[in-house]
């Protein structure tokens, strides 16, 4: 079943925003509703943005009022630098439960739930296999708070899938993402003049290009992919290989013993290495992407090409820096969408909708608490 009426949670994240943009181009998708507590960071055309927290009662009303058939959950925090542990737990575990609760129920219109997860589910340990497949469990219990949250969130999704056999549940476990527009701990680390590493270790690293992030989510939205899928570009690189692709030296500044302390000291130099990344810098990780390929997805870039794309961006960064890019202006968006003074040809997105769909959308918005979103 291809998605027709889609709700994207976490539309303010890079992942959610790019997915919304990709779905906007598809005419067979009638409605795209993006929800998030924060402003969108990608320019959206016909996606309706609704600012909500993670309270499931509100989400449930939106899902039912807009007759959503596909929910794509892109909220998961996969980088512990971006949020304090409490907030990350709240978002990753409690938030996931709330989103799932909003999708479930006997009279729910939802037929498909797609969850963005992370290869942090597998962790990174000495005793790991070289390539994790989807049914493998990590050999040891999670070490870091972030990994614990990811595992817990996936447990909730698994339980949801067994309780709701009528809903197709897809879990995509993404490898570390790289690309020109993405800001993560890894892009920050690889952007340094030399790539820091742990003395005596050259871990195996697998990446996914930013275009494949929303590519894989979109593929899951278009087709029926029940179950868990690893998403990572072909090829596993050694960290030294990554550094040489970037044209940078590898700097083994972290000692093999007392690595955590040294990483703490590096924070004084404004280099933040989160604990889950320290594990990866020591043992590395590879995941087997063949199930997703067998399900028909064709990756646009290999791990190596993802690193090369980042390398191109890093070389031009000094020149393009200071470019603010897109900034969400609520009033302008509202004006372009709703004001009668706007010419039909300039109206955001809505000209593609039929009058019935428009009135339906208006009804959906009116049914929200407090009527149409206001400041």
């Amino acid at each position, binding site marked *: 079943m291809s998605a027709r009426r889609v709700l994207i949670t976490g539309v303010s994240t890079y992942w959610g925003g790019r997915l919304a943009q990709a779905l906007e181009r*598809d005419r067979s998708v009638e409605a795209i509703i993006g929800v998030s507590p924060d402003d969108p960071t990608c320019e959206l055309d016909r996606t309706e943005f609704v600012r909500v927290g993670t309270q499931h009662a509100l989400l449930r009303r939106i899902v039912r009022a807009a007759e959503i058939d596909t929910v794509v959950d892109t909220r998961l925090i996969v980088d512990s630098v971006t949020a304090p542990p409490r907030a990350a737990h709240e978002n990753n575990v409690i938030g996931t439960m709330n989103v799932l609760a909003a999708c479930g129920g006997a009279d729910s219109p939802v037929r498909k739930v797609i969850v963005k997860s992370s290869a942090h589910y597998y962790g990174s340990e000495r005793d790991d296999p070289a*390539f994790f497949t989807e049914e493998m469990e990590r050999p040891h219990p999670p070490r870091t708070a972030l990994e614990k949250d990811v595992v817990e969130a996936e447990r909730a999704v698994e339980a949801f899938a067994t309780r709701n056999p009528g809903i197709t549940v897809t879990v995509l476990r993404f490898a570390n993402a790289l690309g020109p527009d993405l800001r993560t701990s890894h892009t920050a680390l690889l952007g340094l003049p030399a790539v820091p590493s742990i003395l005596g270790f050259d871990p*195996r690293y697998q990446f996914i290009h930013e275009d494949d992030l929303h590519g894989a989510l979109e593929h899951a939205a278009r087709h029926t992919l029940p179950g868990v899928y690893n998403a990572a570009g072909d090829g596993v690189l050694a960290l030294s290989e990554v550094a040489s692709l970037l044209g940078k030296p590898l700097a083994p500044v972290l000692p093999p013993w007392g690595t955590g302390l040294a990483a703490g000291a590096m924070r004084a130099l404004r280099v933040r290495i989160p604990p889950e990344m320290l594990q990866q810098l*020591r043992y590395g990780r590879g995941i087997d*992407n063949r199930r997703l390929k067998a399900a028909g997805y064709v990756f646009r870039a290999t791990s190596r090409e993802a690193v090369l794309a980042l390398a191109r961006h890093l070389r031009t960064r000094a020149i393009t820096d200071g470019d603010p890019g897109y900034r969400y202006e609520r009033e302008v968006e509202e004006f372009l969408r709703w004001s009668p003074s706007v010419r039909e040809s300039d109206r955001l997105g809505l000209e593609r909708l039929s009058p019935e769909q428009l009135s339906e959308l208006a009804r959906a918005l009116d049914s929200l608490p407090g009527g149409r979103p206001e400041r």
Partner: protein
Amino acid sequence: MSARAALPAPAPSDDPRHHLPAIEPDRRISDWGRSERIEGLVDRTLVEFLYHYWFRCEVEGIEHVPPTGGALLVANHGGALPPDASMIAKAIKEEHSRPRPLHLTVEHFFKGYPFLSMFVTKIGGVPAHPANVHRLLHDEQQLVLVFPEGAKGTEKLFKDRYKLRRFGRGGFVEAAARAGVPIVPVAVVGAEEAMPTIAQVGLLKRLTGLIYFPITPLFPHLGLLGAAYLPAKFRIRFLPPVRTDRLAGEALDDRGLLQEIADEIRGRIQDEVLDIIGDRRSVWLG
């Protein structure tokens, strides 16, 4: 409905082998972390010297190594820092009509120890995880070498040389059978004398975090020189392959049967080792 969305979902192919990553010609490191450059450098220098001049390796039965397809090589293991794995790999490179890379399975310990983790991976070591062995044998159709004795083989003292230890719990037989590849037993003589272990020091083992801490004729009192091998004569004998395709279905869950086959292979290697020792006149000259 757009034309794209109307297309049926692509038929999934069941065989994971169809979806292996394509080879990227610009890369010189494999997905397993093996470095063509470093492996080649070590091979042309140290291994070349040891193979031809120091150990003067003599190889028999190289034709038992299949020229195509996966195969699991199983050998006896001995000596404190055993050179047997790299000599077997070199033998296939030098003597075989169709030289192929050999993947050496190593203890997980190596992945966790600084420098060793880098070096062992770069020259072709793969952690001995069943999933790794299966992917190499079944999906990638490669040659894999295992030492079922593991550290039990290398930590044994000189007085116990060439007495093969227990061959694990038959895990390697199961790995080969699940992958549907033959087992090629290999008997190696010379490794035990190249770096004999006189004693094991438990305290130093714990302090250094190594898998064992051996005292050899040169180590640790000569420091780094202790890593030098004595010039024992090497003989490597590849034995006729043992087919595993008769093992299928329920037989794979029969631990007793797997253990029996493992013991049979161990017995064959032990017999061949004794046969080679019986023929040699001198440890050093052969």
